[in-house]
């Protein structure tokens, strides 16, 4: 497509049209995330009380998860580095690492969710200390539960779609569709993955740390 249709490259330099499209999508997605996060912060400010950071959520575990996602961003960069050098094996290896990072992230998040949803006496005590009812931590657990689940679920869905997206890219890589002078789609996928990572750091800070 890119080569076939004559284009004005005067604006936004030499970025391919596909990349511009992804950037625009990131702007839009960022606005959606922004609205959810700012909305949540607004509700938190006007809430009568708010659990202390770390009193219910498992911060060390999620910090590890955050580290994992940052690593997967790093392997994504390595994947790009490999194809620049026409290293097909490296490309496949690092793409697989990146996907694995995303899958493990989702697994840990699912484990955390299931732990909250099954609940128990210990969790009940923690919730009671924070002034919240019940022995399970659910989306219905006050506005705190609403904000936690909405934000992390929306992000989780992005990781999931990122994993699917990268799997498609990986299957293309296995068919050797990328070369050192044709890897635009890989870069575009990378943009999306880094964006998800960046947003997570924000979500982690807002939901878990403060």
């Amino acid at each position, binding site marked *: 497509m890119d080569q076939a249709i004559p284009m004005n490259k005067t604006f936004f330099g030499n970025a391919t049209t596909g990349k*511009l*499209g992804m950037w625009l999508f990131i702007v*839009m997605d960022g*606005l*959606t995330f922004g609205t*959810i996060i700012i*909305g949540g912060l607004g*509700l938190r400010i006007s809430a009568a009380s708010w659990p202390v950071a770390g009193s219910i959520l498992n911060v060390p575990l999620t910090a590890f998860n955050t580290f994992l996602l940052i690593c997967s961003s790093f392997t994504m960069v390595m994947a790009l580095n490999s194809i620049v050098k026409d290293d097909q094996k490296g490309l496949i290896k690092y793409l697989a690492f990146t996907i694995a990072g995303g899958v493990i992230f989702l697994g840990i998040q699912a484990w955390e969710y299931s732990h909250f949803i099954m609940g128990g006496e210990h969790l009940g005590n923690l919730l009671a200390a924070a002034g919240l*009812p019940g022995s399970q931590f659910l989306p219905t657990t006050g506005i705190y539960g609403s904000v936690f689940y909405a934000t992390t679920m*929306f992000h989780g869905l992005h990781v999931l779609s990122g994993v699917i997206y990268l799997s498609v890219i990986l299957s293309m890589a296995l068919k050797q569709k990328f070369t050192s002078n044709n890897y635009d789609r890989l870069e575009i996928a990378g943009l999306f993955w880094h964006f998800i990572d960046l947003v997570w750091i924000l979500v982690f800070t807002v939901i878990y740390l403060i």
Partner: protein
Amino acid sequence: MEGIKMSSSKSIMSTHIFSTDHKTIGKQFLFLGIFFLLFGGFQALLIRWQLAYPEQPVPWWLLGFIINGEAGMITPDVYNQLFTMHGTIMIFWAITPLLIGAFGNFLIPLQIGAKDMAFPTLNMLSFWTFFLSGVVLLSAYFLPTGAASGGWTSYPPLSLPAGGIPGLGQAFWTLSITLMGVATMMGAINYVITVIRLRAPGMTYFRMPLSVWGLWLTSILNVIFVPVIAAGLIMLLIDQLLGTQFFLAGRLAAGGGGDPLLFQHVFWIFGHPEVYILILPVWGIVSELLSVFSRKPAFGAKVTVICMSTIVVLSSIVWGHHMYTTGMSPLLGKTFMFLTLLISIPSSIFFFNWLATLWRGSLHFDPPMLHTMAVIWVFAIGGLTGLYNATVTADIYLHDTMFVVGHFHYTMAASVLFGGYAAIAHWYPRMFGRMLNPLLSKIHFWGTFITINLVFFNMMVTGYAGQHRRLYYPGEFEFLQPLADMNIFITIMAFFLGAFQILFLYNFIHSMLKGKVAENNPWKANTLEWTMDYPIPHGNFSTIPQVVNGPHEYSNPNIKDADWVCQTVKIEGDS
């Protein structure tokens, strides 16, 4: 050329259903938009039936037999569903596809000299996501509790199970609008980037037809504000389905709860830009057509563009004028009032540009021009009544009355309808290769113009007299009883208005099959979409045109023997 797949095996599937040709996708949006326009219009007539003849059986010619309820009359529940679905359908499934979907797709590549959109596959996906969203919306009618009934604004807590409306209707509403938003975002990415990247050589921004400008600015607003409402809708949806409490407060919310007003803010942060999203394409098309049919350059075209861009910016900071009665601080109210009234400055400037384009032009009153001039009239009334709404002191009285309903039907329904009809009449020959029947078009135009004014002006009068919107039975209140005759009159005019739209539909379909075959450039317009033979092939231009003029070189004294010149033809003697 290799980029656009000229599939040799031309199956119906790839050329008509899952086509990636922007012209085909534009037509698909057009047909779907017209379908929903008729659907929403029919609902409007039922609403009017109840307001004029409350609790009387709906006659057969309004399909009374499918309205449930006792003896075919409209029950309060059905009435609530009617006005909710009417507003929702008209705004999101009629106006949006007609102007943005159909003409955005059809015009942008043709008018800027591109072979297609930047992302043709995404474009096709956009249409089918849109289609799916419509299916989800309408399927709510098959739920035991029926479709949504919380108003097109769907304010919580009313729109939440805990807050009033039972069943899944509201969740279907939220889901369908979310899907519609996704489709809109896909379209917006395409439109914005197509204009940035695919303009033909020589097609500078200020040489783009004003219709492209309108559509482009609309897409920019879509890029910024649809994501915001998407966030609001996601929160609303999980409030409805998972029991989160973003928009519940007080007794309704166990363990804290959120704030219903947050939804109103998010809704109107998007909602006010949305009204400009809907009107900007019309402004662009009107600015362009006035020039064509006055055979004169568009007066102050650059200023018009700058004014429209200014409005795009201002429109994002005035949402509070929908919320004057929510107990906002007087200082905030005054601020929003000031900012809102500020919009009337750029609006008036380009409005006078329109009039100046007409001034001493040689006006050709073909059907597209009639509709275009109708926009000038209805938009003037709509804009002026907006000033009353924007003034806090007046609005505290006018808010949620039929006056507001009249206001936004003038600005949105009437302006957009006439703008859409102008566009259809103007580009019909390019879309279908034939002309609309001019006599039927003119009857349709005058019938619509007269009745639409009688309907919406009188609505404002009843509102000024105190009739609230969304009332099931105004006659229940003694002080509204004197308005009964007027309500009946509005309803009868609305029936005529509806009948004239059937005439349009007949003309639209009949002309497609039997209309006079159109020449390549029946209106003698300068813009690029008229340069090729019909049918325009997939890929539009065999060679990308080189543009040398702006779009408005009408009656240029340096052109011999004609009062127009294609944008690609150099005018001798012009510098």
